[in-house]
């Protein structure tokens, strides 16, 4: 069971709502994914309009609505959007995105940390999108992030977990859930992240632009479950030693004869 800020989730797949061909396909894909956490770009919805397409398509009893600050270029803009979202949608949950470069959409570490600290103080449940930097992950946790969301590779690249070495360190050190966000282009990438011990993955583009988004959503659901199961079952060590008896150091059994029983 995954717990973020005292809320429990049985699904470890989070999905995004952008880039779908229609709100209907989006709704069906979300259902097929089994996701219980769904992120929505604040700039895409009209929270004051009850008839808004995207908001109507979401069953807010079944899923945790996670507004995101996509488009914010600095801490100040992100904080303004967050306050607006809380006032209009009545949720303190927030996926914090601060992306000053509109081309790569890579997150700004400095302003992300500043905004996280301020928003946590204002009572938000902040899940910051971040580059796979272990020290930044720790700093974000120190100021109260409810989870951290390191990227697997730059958004939209479908390259998978190119940051694996860094992500491993982040997971090992984390005291809040680690959600791999961005770069996951195929279910095998999602499974890989889960095998590494990620607590969840967030997928959007790979589902939204698939030939059949609903079936792809289901495929991601299976991959995430398989990866998690494998992690919990305990993967074998990738070893350079062919067997336990082949010495890794040249140390022989007789070398331990100095030890008294």
């Amino acid at each position: 069971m995954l717990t973020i800020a005292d809320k429990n989730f049985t699904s470890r797949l989070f999905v995004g709502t952008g880039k779908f061909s229609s709100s209907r396909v989006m709704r069906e894909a979300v259902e097929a994914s089994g996701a219980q956490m769904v992120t929505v770009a604040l700039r895409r919805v009209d929270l004051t309009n009850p008839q808004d397409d995207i908001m109507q398509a979401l069953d807010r009893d079944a899923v945790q609505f996670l507004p995101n600050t996509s488009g914010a270029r600095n801490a100040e803009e992100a904080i303004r959007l967050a306050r607006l979202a809380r006032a209009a949608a009545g949720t303190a949950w927030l996926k914090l995105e601060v992306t000053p470069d509109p081309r790569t959409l890579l997150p700004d570490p400095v302003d992300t940390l500043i905004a996280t600290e301020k928003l946590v103080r204002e009572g938000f449940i902040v899940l910051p999108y971040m580059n796979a930097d272990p020290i930044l992950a720790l700093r974000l946790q120190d100021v109260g992030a409810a989870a951290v969301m390191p990227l697997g590779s730059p958004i939209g690249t479908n390259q998978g977990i190119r940051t694996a070495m860094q992500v491993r360190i982040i997971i090992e050190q984390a005291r809040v859930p680690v959600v791999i966000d961005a770069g996951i282009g195929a279910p095998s990438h999602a499974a890989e992240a889960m095998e590494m011990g990620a607590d969840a993955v967030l997928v959007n583009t790979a589902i939204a632009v698939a030939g059949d988004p609903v079936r792809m959503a289901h495929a991601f659901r299976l991959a995430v479950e398989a990866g998690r199961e494998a992690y919990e079952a305990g993967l074998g060590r990738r070893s350079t030693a062919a067997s336990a008896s082949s010495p890794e150091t040249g140390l022989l059994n007789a070398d331990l004869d100095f030890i008294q029983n």
Partner: protein
Amino acid sequence: MFAPPDFNELRQWIFRSTEEDVRSALNRDRLDIRGLASLISPAAESFLPQMARRSAWITNQRFGKVIQIYAPLYLSNLCTNRCAYCGFSVNNTIPRRKLSLDEAEAEATILHRRGFRHILLVSGEAPRALGTDYLEELALRLRDRFAALSIEVQPLDSDEYVRLFRAGITAVAVYQETYDREVYARVHHGGRKRDYDYRLDTPARAAAAGMREVGLGALLGLTDWRTEGLALALHLQWLRKRFWQTAFTVSFPRLRPAAGEFQPPFPVSERNLSQLLFALRLFDHDVGLILSTREEERFRNGMVGLGPTRYSAGSCTAPGGYGRPEQGGEQFSIGDHRNITEVSNALIAKGFDPVYKDWDPEFQAASSSSSTYQLRSAL
């Protein structure tokens, strides 16, 4: 605050381990706490060579072919506690003394002349006789001559650790002695040390105050060493998550004969200690492992490169013992009587570099408020 582990549950994890569990743990990329339980279980005893190999390989990767060298400097054997196992216990009749600041400085000068640049300041627990004022003044006197100054004294409050850090103390060692609350109550008969929880919380206070390094430890021999080791590993894991800017060391002093009638109820062999050290290395690749002069020369020589990373040398456990070795009042008798040169030469002969200086006082002068973003809510 770190919740004290449930010894019965830990015992079950350990003693239910099978050889299959041990093989599976050895086959994992990274050892988790359940894997550690298997590797310190009786089922793992026949796997000691495999564990030694893995431990040696990891230690070599992380630390290289070096061993850090330090010496303890006993400041005082005055003590207000009554601990069943300790030579300093208040009801033992040993010659008592506390070094004046000048005497302490003279002892430090002897160690400096012998080549030591890292010293561990040790005292019994008598806060009114030897408290933060004394330690602060001594640190200020010594900081320019020594690369690192550690303390192993009574547990202090947070603001005291901040003061001592600013004065040049770099590391704090405070051993829980035993994580088993019942045994803890049984062997600590009197004094402030009876407060299990205050002591358990001390490493976190020291880390939060900015200390570069915090040392944990358990006295082996008071209760089942396997469960003790697992409990300590849980504490270490908890601290690592919260105080990621702090380096940690672990020491497993085996109880040795001391003044008083106490005999360790659960004797621990070298083989047991080795199994624990190797397993802990597999569990935490980066933790500093200390092997003091409590252990014998033969054992310390053999263990070089297999897991431990820091050795004491030429130690005397009586206050003033470096200048006047004949006067008595030791905390415990030591097992390795070689001086620093002999220990160093033995390390060099095994292809290891004895390291005396591995820190610089300049760091601390420049960063005395470096702990501003350590996690305070953990306290």
